């Protein structure tokens, strides 16, 4: 029985540089890296030392709070460097890749009990793909989730077409679903974009059709409109491409980190898809394909992704690399600033006349377009926040660290990415996603047992 949800609040940001539907094999990356910061809330402990030899599937680091949760190397080779930042925080664990990848063999998954499956997923490093609500951190293997949610489409700016990416691996997607189904006593819910037919024959799931502007593709929207999370409940979420990796890795008995990603954005010469691996160096994909000028590389989408240099690495969960112009130039107020006509300026409001051109694609840079202010304008966050939650009140509760109010206002139901559009539209330029992240970690700490 398929449910249907229409999301009204939100906004599609139409950027230049969408990917063409053609796939190319990227140059093999020399170095791969895992970044502990990709795993929200994780305190990493190293499992290797510089100079160690690893196979694809050998642990690089693990969760300090739960040593069963390991992050494994996407390739075989030598641990080249553990890059540290302030206070010796681990930033990157780099592996110099072998020419021929050697895999650690776990043996194909032949079926078994739930405990055996959990154990297998943990050992293979596949567990890191499964996240939980509340808090948006990696799932706790000791929990039994009420339900599992998967959104099969991405509505964020320049997002890749997920059905296109999975087209050859559909059977592995189904295998992944079958495995996940064993993990919960409840349902596996999938959210499908309205009009989608690709995922219609996936079995063993509760399916929900969702239509509307971004953030309609966020998994939070699916959860909120099918079975919202209550205090004390735990649900798990997982990205659709990671379902494929789980299905594939279980079937072949080795950790397969293959990813087809999109290289997109206004500064990319001809945006399209590339076959690579998790943790690949961005330059291995992007070199020679970027227009001249100062650009910013973002692993992930322009609203939630992480800022990288060309020598940086593709994030663990990310499915695209966005390249947009840096906006580190002053803008004279009449010609280009706040008093300019501004036909090339994109805004949720109609403060600039670009609303006359609804079909226009924009080349937006990283300028803040204004200075940080106290909250003044009200009602704008609500326009892009399709949840029955008061965003401004919740953000303020987090800012004053009022745990009780955060809980009452529904912090369990959201993740920072759900506030990405709020941050985008905020007239006062408040860094809302960071506030929400801080709030989630505060809550987690408060209730840590």
């Amino acid at each position, binding site marked *: 029985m398929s449910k249907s949800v229409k999301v009204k609040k939100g906004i599609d940001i139409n950027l230049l540089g969408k990917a063409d539907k053609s796939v190319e094999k990227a140059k093999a990356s020399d170095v791969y890296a895992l970044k502990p910061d990709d795993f929200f809330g994780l305190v990493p402990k190293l499992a290797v030392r510089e100079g160690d030899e690893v196979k694809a599937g050998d642990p690089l680091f693990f969760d300090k709070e739960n040593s069963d949760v390991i992050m494994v190397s996407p390739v075989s080779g030598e641990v080249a460097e553990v890059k540290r930042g302030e206070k010796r925080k681990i930033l990157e664990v780099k592996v110099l890749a072998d020419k021929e990848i050697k895999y650690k063999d776990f043996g194909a998954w032949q079926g078994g009990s739930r405990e055996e499956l959990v154990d297998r997923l943990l050992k293979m490093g596949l567990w890191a793909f499964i996240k939980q609500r509340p808090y948006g951190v990696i799932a706790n293997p000791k929990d039994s989730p009420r339900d599992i949610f998967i959104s099969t489409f991405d509505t964020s700016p320049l997002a890749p077409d997920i059905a296109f990416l999975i087209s050859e691996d559909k059977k592995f997607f189904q295998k992944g679903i079958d495995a996940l189904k064993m993990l919960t006593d409840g349902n596996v819910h999938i959210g499908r974009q309205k009009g989608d037919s690709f995922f219609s024959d996936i079995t063993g799931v509760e399916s929900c059709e969702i239509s509307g502007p971004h953030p309609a593709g966020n998994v939070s929207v699916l959860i909120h409109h099918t079975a919202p999370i209550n205090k004390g409940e735990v649900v798990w979420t997982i990205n659709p491409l990671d379902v494929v990796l789980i299905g594939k890795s279980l079937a072949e008995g080795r950790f397969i980190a293959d990813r087809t990603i999109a290289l997109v954005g206004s500064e990319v010469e001809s945006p399209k898809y590339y076959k690579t691996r998790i943790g690949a160096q961005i330059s291995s994909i992007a070199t020679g394909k970027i227009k001249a000028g100062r650009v910013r590389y973002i692993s992930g989408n322009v609203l939630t992704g992480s800022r990288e240099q060309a020598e940086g690495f593709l994030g663990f969960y990310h499915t695209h690399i966005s390249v947009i112009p840096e906006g580190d130039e*002053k803008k*004279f107020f009449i010609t280009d600033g706040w008093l300019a006509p501004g036909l090339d300026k*994109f805004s*949720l409001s109609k403060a*600039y006349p670009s609303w006359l051109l609804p079909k226009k694609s924009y080349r*937006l840079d990283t300028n803040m377009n*204004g200075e940080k202010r106290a909250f003044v304008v009200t009602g704008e966050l609500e326009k892009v926040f399709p949840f029955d939650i008061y965003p401004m009140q919740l953000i303020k509760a987090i800012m004053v660290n009022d745990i009780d109010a955060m809980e009452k206002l529904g912090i369990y139901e959201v993740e920072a990415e759900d506030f990405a559009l709020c*941050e985008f539209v905020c007239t006062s330029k408040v860094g809302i996603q960071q506030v929400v992240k801080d709030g989630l970690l505060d809550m987690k700490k408060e209730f840590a047992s």
Partner: protein
Amino acid sequence: MKVVDNLLGKVRPVFEKGGRFEKFWPVFDALETFAFVPDHTTKNGAHIRDAIDMKRTMFLVIVAMVPALLFGMYNLGYQHYMAIGQEATLIDMFVFGLIKTIPIIIVSYGVGLGVEFVFCIIKGHAIYEGFLVSGMLIPLIMPVDIPLWMVAVATAFSVVFVKEVFGGTGMNILNVALTARAFIFFAYPTEMSGNKVWISLNGEGAVDGYTGETLLGQAVGLEGNVGFHDVAGTAYASIADSFWASFVGLIPGSIGETSALAVLIGAAILIWTGIASWRIIFWGLIGGAVMGMIFNLVGPSISPENMYLQVPWWHQLVMGGFLFGVVFMATDPVSAAQTTRGKVIYGFLIGLLGILIRVVNPAYPEGIMMAILFMNVMAPTIDHYVVQANINKRLKRLKTAKTTA
């Protein structure tokens, strides 16, 4: 603009930390960011940002006020020449109003921004744009011949006591401009009420029959029938005539508030651009209309001699500062209710109370001022209950989940 940039770059070190005028950094920063949107870039999180910022927002509000301002200038001249019984051209009238208004605008901005600068220098934080709007609103709600020192005192009082002591722009508990008006209303009532202050005779003799009463003033003493007259004492032929005069704005009143038409143009700009909440404006009008209708309905039976109750509700809406208040004052996002549902309640009650106070309490002919200030105070309470309802819904869902589990 390269020239300006170079110039700013040259004087910049003087204001930076360790410079001679280090303390005046906020002032320099305000000027620099006025001329150039700074080169600040996003760090992490949302890498791209909406083009809108506080400056654009405030600028658009000022644009929305321009029709009311221009018409107000013209109307000052129109009323003046009508009161002294002289013929005058449109240009004459406008210039008269211009000369009267400019000093008030200068004093309002001068004092308000001055206070703001001082506080920002003391606190060492950037100067926010909030007063750009307040500074224009204040002249628009002043009587024409208000002594400039009173404008100065009222503005300073208002900026200091309802804004800066609470933390500056974004933190004010009341509408700043309206508080300035209320301050004069209570501290110097003879300059803000009565029949003498709304029209500038400029020392010249008035025509016979001149009264200088606003329509609101006349309404209190209406006898026998609902009939208004203009400043020269000529009665309007019909209620429709006085309605149209009020709608267009050729009636006495504060500088920018008289023209319903000009205010509605402003409202259209604010609503279309998405700067002001259409809910507050719409429900404010509904609230006012409902109260007016109630008076129209019950007036003849409960108090037949009080003709104010029988002023048609659609006429009530265009008299005095009602519309101006609902469009430009009630919508101040900081002092208004912040939740969507809260805005509906807040707007509706402002309209309702505005007409109620105006009609039943002759001491406060301009009820909308009181209504908005009162609802500014009540807004957090409204929001509290709206948010509480959301919280209760969540708790209820939790209970159902528990019982079914």
